[in-house]
């Protein structure tokens, strides 16, 4: 297995800062906007975005965690069973502008499931998608992100991993992992 850093912690900080400013351009003071991080790994991105926005705006944007497990389309079609994670949405999304947040956009199936899961909490005014990494030419569904940290050209056999300081590593990094036959 080969691991290569494609975004280091300094670049990642700049990237998150840029995404936050793009969000502010569209959402102003976030009075009608909420953030939904997708379980399991999108919640760390959502937390980071919320923290950075709080530093810039001086207010906490409502942030929830959305679990898509029960809405996925690959249940009973994969070898390993799907384990559910907690959903934590303490606000109504009826009439709100929703920003879905995930770390890596790959086939787009999780995002489709997330949109299904989200509808259970009301009818949002509009929905946007923010991802740190957009893997190009890998989509199974016609889904495009509104805000992108970086586009990455990768092989199907490769994997993109976003690591957050405190979760499993000493610092934030985004890795491109290539499986090799050893």
């Amino acid at each position, binding site marked *: 297995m080969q691991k290569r850093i494609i975004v280091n912690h300094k670049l990642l900080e700049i990237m998150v800062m840029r995404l936050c400013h793009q969000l502010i351009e569209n959402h102003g003071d976030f009075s009608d906007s909420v953030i939904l991080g997708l379980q399991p790994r999108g919640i760390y991105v959502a937390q980071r975005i919320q923290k950075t926005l709080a530093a810039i705006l001086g207010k906490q944007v409502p942030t929830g965690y959305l*679990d898509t*497990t*029960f*809405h*996925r389309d690959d*249940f*009973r079609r994969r070898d*390993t*069973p*799907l*384990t*559910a*994670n*907690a*959903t934590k949405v303490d606000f109504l999304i009826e009439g709100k502008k929703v920003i879905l947040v995930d770390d890596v956009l790959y086939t787009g199936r999780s995002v489709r499931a997330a949109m*299904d*899961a989200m*509808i*259970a*909490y*009301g009818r949002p005014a509009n929905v946007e998608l923010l991802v740190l990494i957009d893997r190009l030419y890998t989509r199974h569904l016609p889904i495009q992100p509104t805000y992108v940290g970086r586009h990455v050209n990768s092989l199907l056999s490769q994997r993109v991993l976003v690591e957050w300081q405190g979760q499993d590593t000493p610092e934030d990094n985004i890795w491109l992992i290539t499986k090799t036959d050893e």
Partner: protein
Amino acid sequence: MQELSVRHLLGIKDITPQDIQLIFETADNFKDVLNRPIKKVPSLRDITIANVFFENSTRTRLSFELAEKRLSADVINFSSSSSSVKKGETLLDTVNNILAMKVDMIVMRHSSPGAPHFLSRHITANIVNAGDGTHEHPTQALLDSFSIRERLGDVAGKKVVIIGDILHSRVALSNIFALQKLGAEVMVCGPITLLPKYIKELGVKVELDVRKALAWCDVANVLRIQLERQQMKYFPSLREYTLYYGIDKKLLDSLDKEIVLMHPGPINRGVELSSDAADSHHSIILNQVENGVAIRMAVLYLLASRQ
């Protein structure tokens, strides 16, 4: 990723403590789903489930049916009173005919102990035991332990007494297995005629005095006195049973601690439980019913993912 160690839920005896924890964790998530404005998820939309009830049931069948519908499964209901079983068809033939209509899972209640175990050796569909005679009622035990966990934080280390007709109760047996696997201490309490002869071999305490039992426990699970069995004279009269084993508010208040009161339903008000006790803050009886749907959703979901 975790999965259940079994393909069928035949009894608590056959599953591991890890299985129970996995079911509880999944049920936590389904409980969350049930509190949303839209209480439905599409997970089992390509699955057909048959509820096959050879014995009467209201609560369990409604609870299973609701759980199945909340998971978007297709549901068919079968009860033996209006079927060819009356014409002499065997259990295996009946079920094979249902399965020939492309059914993926069977939820079965039967009056004979071991009926779902027999079936599991002959068919490939997943089976959930919804009560087999006086043997096991696994989903009831799971929802009971889940409700204790919800109220007291954990089941391990808690003292639970099961009061009433232990002899005929599948709820009692499944509860004993579940509570012991989760690390609780279990006591049974009732008239000596309603306690099975070898009950001590299961590693439970036995107490004949209900006051001592209540003073010992953190949780009291009170079973229904089966009025229909009154002719068999397991005790002299209902009045005498109520006098010695009935639980009322006065008795609960006389204890120097708060205990949790449970009942699998239906309650005979004024027999094993007085109304003031059943409706008191001690009681988590309606929480049990609510949790039943989440637990059954978890069981069906986890078994379906093991196809």
